[in-house]
């Protein structure tokens, strides 16, 4: 009976933790997560913007079972519970909103490293295809007349 109560409280605390984590996860859907705190500089105000990608998975379980004890030949009972989860939050700057007395404009944030990596990948596709095609041509058998 006591074991059962302990397991139930453990499962409850696990579920509470799950609820808290879920609430924090759902907070990623807020507009304030994407638009940062405004930064004031003289007459100009800058609002940074970012893209947020958040993924989460969680599981809680418990169970019980009965069996015969080999040594005492008496029925024995066991109860257990457990849980686990994982998640990840990715955030990437996208642009800055610049508001000055002259007007409001949106300036993009360009990530040169990512673009360069994509460019190299694209180049790799083309060079790879070129090598593949030239090696195919070399591998063709010569037709002797």
């Amino acid at each position, binding site marked *: 009976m006591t074991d059962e109560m302990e397991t139930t409280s453990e499962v409850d605390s696990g579920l509470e933790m799950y609820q808290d984590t879920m609430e924090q996860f759902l907070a990623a859907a807020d*507009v304030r997560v994407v638009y940062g705190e405004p930064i004031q500089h003289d007459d100009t105000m800058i609002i940074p913007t970012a*893209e*947020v990608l*958040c993924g*989460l998975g969680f599981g809680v379980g418990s169970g019980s079972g009965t069996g015969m004890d080999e040594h005492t030949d008496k029925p024995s009972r066991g109860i257990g519970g457990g849980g686990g989860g994982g998640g990840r939050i990715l955030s990437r700057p996208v642009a800055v909103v610049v508001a000055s007395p002259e007007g409001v404009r949106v300036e*993009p944030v360009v990530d040169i490293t990512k673009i360069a990596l994509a460019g190299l*990948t*694209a180049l790799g596709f083309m060079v790879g295809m070129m090598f593949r*095609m030239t090696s195919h041509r070399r591998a063709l058998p010569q037709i002797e007349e």
Partner: protein
Amino acid sequence: MPAITREVRTGETQKVGDYEITPTTNLLSIKLPGYHAGLIWNRPKAVIVKTPDGQEKILRVRDVTRLMIWSMLAGGIIGAIMIGMMYRNK
């Protein structure tokens, strides 16, 4: 509760000088029914600017990095296909 939802969310309006700025975001959320799992993708969509003369302007927030990455990858794939076709026709 729907598994996949897509919505545009509007934030609080901020006053900067004579301008009023209202941020908006594009939100995509995926929740797997029956499983304790989900995904949220929140990205800036636009800022609505209200000028002192009462006009409203929508300034789109463009993700230049993503645009360039996808353009380059698409270019690479198209380039590879074209190279393949050129060599095949020779």
